[in-house]
């Protein structure tokens, strides 16, 4: 049996999964800590992609074209977008904590529309992609894009880094505690508003990182955020809100299922994802690794 196509699909599935993970980790964290479902998460990711592209292009013009220019571009973007995330939380999102769920959802929904047009305003309608000039290499009798290794590696590293951050650092432990009970954390004298702002900034920063990593693989174009955000929702719900392990596992499930569905039912690959999402919501709404509290 020729395993090459399956191996190929598994491979691309894993790299897809890592992109989804990087993007969904922030979403899951934000919802877990602040109970805000950030519809605009993928749009911020898209914005980050355009920003990364612009910085990359600028640096390449200044210092000579080289794939290594991508690294500082990503770093700059992460910094800028984290700042933007901080500002968004501080000036907009903060006002909706006392409100009902639908109003919170609508606020972030509105941001999807606003930011989407901001991208159109600044960068116009064309796609943006970065060509790192990476040659495909031969593996298992088939051609493989080695950049996918980079993506998988980045995803795993970030996952490990996040785990370390959440479980071994003081701030991380506070964040995890806040997922369980913000009242308790507040009662311990820790300033919740600051925590929220920083968590949101962290979430957006992760999305920015995801976009930078993604850029050499596929072009960024208007409307991609609309498709991807529902996949992120699927990942976060399947894995469980607020659980990084859940997000990681669910990303792999969704990424791999999608890739293999392409082989058998190309048009319905996404339908498969939603089917899984529906089954999880009916059988176990708080996800594989989530806790049965927040409703």
């Amino acid at each position, binding site marked *: 049996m020729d395993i090459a196509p399956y191996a190929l699909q598994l491979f691309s599935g894993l790299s897809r999964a890592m992109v989804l993970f990087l993007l969904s980790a922030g979403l899951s964290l934000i919802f877990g800590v602040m109970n805000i479902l950030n519809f605009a998460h993928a749009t911020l990711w898209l914005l980050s992609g355009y920003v990364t592209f612009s910085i990359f292009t600028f640096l390449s013009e200044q210092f000579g074209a080289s794939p290594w220019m991508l690294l500082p571009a990503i770093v700059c973007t992460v910094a800028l977008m984290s700042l933007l995330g901080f500002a968004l939380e501080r000036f907009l999102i903060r*006002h909706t904590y006392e409100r009902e769920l639908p109003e919170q959802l609508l606020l972030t*929904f509105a941001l999807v529309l606003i930011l989407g047009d901001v991208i*159109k305003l600044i960068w116009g309608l064309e796609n943006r992609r970065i060509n790192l000039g990476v040659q495909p290499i031969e593996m298992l009798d088939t051609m493989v894009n080695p950049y996918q290794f980079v993506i998988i590696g980045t995803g795993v590293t970030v996952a490990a880094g996040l785990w370390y951050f959440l479980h071994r650092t003081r701030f991380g432990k506070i964040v995890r505690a806040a997922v369980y009970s913000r009242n308790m954390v507040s009662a311990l004298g820790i300033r919740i508003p600051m925590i929220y702002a920083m968590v949101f900034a962290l979430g957006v920063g992760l999305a920015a990182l995801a976009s930078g990593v993604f850029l050499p693989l596929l072009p960024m174009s208007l409307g991609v955020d609309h498709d991807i955000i529902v996949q992120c929702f699927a990942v976060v719900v399947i894995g469980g809100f607020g659980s990084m392990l859940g997000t990681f596992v669910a990303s792999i499930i969704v990424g791999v299922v999608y890739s293999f569905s392409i082989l058998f039912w190309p048009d319905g690959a996404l339908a498969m994802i939603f089917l899984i999402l529906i089954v999880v919501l009916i059988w176990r709404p708080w996800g594989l690794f989530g806790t049965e509290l927040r409703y």
Partner: protein
Amino acid sequence: MSAYNGNWWSRFYARYGLSGRFALIMLVFFLLVPLLPGEFWTHVGTEILILGLFAMSFNLLYGYMGQISFGHAAFFGLGAYATAMLFTALKTPAGAIGVPEFLLSLLVGPPVAALGALIVGFFCVRLTGIYFAMLSLAFGELLFYIVFSWYSFTKGDDGIQGLLPPLYFQDAGNYYYLTLAIVVVALLAMWRITESPFGYIMRTLRDNQRRAAYLGINVRLHMLMNFVIAGTFAGLAGALWGPFSRSVSPGLLGWQESGIAVFMTLIGGAGAFIGPIVGSVIYTMLQAVVKMYTVYWPLTIGTVILLIVLFLPGGVLGLIEKRIRLRRGEAAQAMEQAASMAEKP
């Protein structure tokens, strides 16, 4: 100050509330729209009515039952597609369709949507809050992708084209009045439902589901019934949409389309019966005007929604209601003061 002593206008308000007054005023305007020169405003009016009906059906779930559904457009789309398919089957090879066949094709939209709502609702009513929102979104997207990818049955992304109504209804004004008639009847039915014992049970489900169960209410069954009713009206709106825009496409089932219903309800005010229609008027007219000058409509409506969420969560009607109550409160206070002062020797 009894409203029953006042003129018929305040008596009308006492019986039918702010919504009643607005509905009456708007009906007068709606009746006069086709008299405007050209077809543009008649088209806009038809769109306001159809999408307004869609938004009203959404509010049955949101304002009255307290749940937000991001997959409600699926039933709008199901109604549109059912009508479109029967329409296509009934029309002649030349593309013409007779009036009875046309009306028949309209008739098939709501039941198909109702069936869809029954199946989807069966699962959704087991959840509430964010999980209800997520599951409804998931079902909506699932249905969207099924329609999108089942090319042999639905023509997939190409959509179904050529839905040309009978000659009489190709005139924008005639189609408009047909739509107006259907929407008015639908709204009267919705008013009856929301003011019935069932309608008030819905409000109890919105305010306190647990307590409602202790009243002896089978919460899931009641939610399902409301879900199906809402889906049916959405299907009716969808049925009207196809022949109006001459085509249907899978996007009608997606979450962006669901978002339109949510926006309209929010703008007009979810707490008032006629809120979604008011929202539809504002939304659709704003869209028509903005699109004449710029392509950045999403930026505009996004900003409007942002401002409303932050400063005007009750929508336009909510604001007016608050003002009226304040003024009545002041008037009542003033009367109390006058009365107590009159008592002093």
